[in-house]
């Protein structure tokens, strides 16, 4: 019987304690951040969309190799010895044309593993998070400054150069080998 009234008492008492707390919170200012109107300042280490400072990229493919997801694809073609490919901001000479540098943000897992190995620190994470899209294909970003046409050109150039070099080599070889062959045969 005592238990019976104890139960009633504890039920009522705890309910009132709870109600007191919630009532108090009616007058506590809300913690809500009113997002589109108010945007909080994000910390400086914020990890959101990747950005590639393409001027500095030397096309070393380190980031693509570090990526666990393989959402980065870097296509490069060697520059001709006659061409000037420019320098990075640290004064390193570039040797490769980066014909395409795409990051698929629909696959990216924002883990920052690609940032650390970069020798020129040209790939880094920014605090831009507002880039949702109606189409998935728009989430594939190409950072290369070369237009596809230019890229084709560079590829063709290098292929031609290679071919020329190969031809030269072959000619050289052709000039050098017959006697050797002949001597072997003998």
């Amino acid at each position, binding site marked *: 019987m005592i238990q019976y009234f104890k139960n009633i008492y504890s039920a009522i008492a705890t309910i009132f304690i709870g109600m007191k707390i919630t009532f108090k919170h009616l007058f506590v200012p*809300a*913690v*809500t*951040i*009113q*997002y*589109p109107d108010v*945007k909080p300042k994000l910390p400086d280490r914020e990890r*959101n*969309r990747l950005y590639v400072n393409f001027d500095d990229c030397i096309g070393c493919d380190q980031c693509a190799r570090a990526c*666990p*997801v*393989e959402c980065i694809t870097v296509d490069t073609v060697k520059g001709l010895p006659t061409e000037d490919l420019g320098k990075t901001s640290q004064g390193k000479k570039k040797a490769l044309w980066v014909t395409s540098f795409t990051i*698929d*943000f*629909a*696959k*990216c*897992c*924002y*883990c920052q593993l690609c940032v650390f190995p970069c020798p020129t620190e040209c790939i880094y994470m920014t605090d831009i*998070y*507002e*880039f*949702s*899209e*109606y*189409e*998935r294909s728009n*989430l594939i970003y190409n950072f290369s400054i070369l237009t596809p046409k230019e890229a084709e050109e560079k590829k063709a150039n290098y292929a031609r150069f290679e071919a020329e070099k190969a031809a030269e080599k072959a000619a050289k070889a052709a000039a050098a080998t017959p006697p050797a062959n002949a001597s072997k045969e003998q």
Partner: protein
Amino acid sequence: MGLLDKQFAKESIVVTSLEDLLNWSRLSSLWQVGFGLACCAIEMMATSASHYDFDRFGVIPRNSPRQADIIIISGTVTLKMATRIKRIYEQMADPKYVISMGSCSNSGGPYWEHGYHVLKGVDRVIPVDVYVPGCPPRPEALLEGLLKLQEKIRNESLVKKTA
């Protein structure tokens, strides 16, 4: 909008302002299926929690898909789950919208290459309206996706649905 499709072959003032009203009501009361899949679901919960407060946009979770307007695919869709998602989507009443939240549901995300049991993108089973990138997206990013969706609804028309 099926019934009204042919009645208003031409736009007029009446139709457009009615349209605006209806679009406004739809976009400001997007009830969501209370449905989480994986990591992004926690971020979705954080979005509806005090700091970001989904309720400000009129989004409240409804547990029954019948009463919901929007489904947020929040996380990895596995092959086992894909059929269920399709079914939940089919159970929802028109007009209905889909937000694909996070890399996993956009395209399989980190699991696209070796994930033998992961569906590579939820758009293989249901049509997606907005893709929110991120892994997981910040709550703000999800809200931005929602605003994008509202923008899309605002431009919808009784006469013909802009897909």
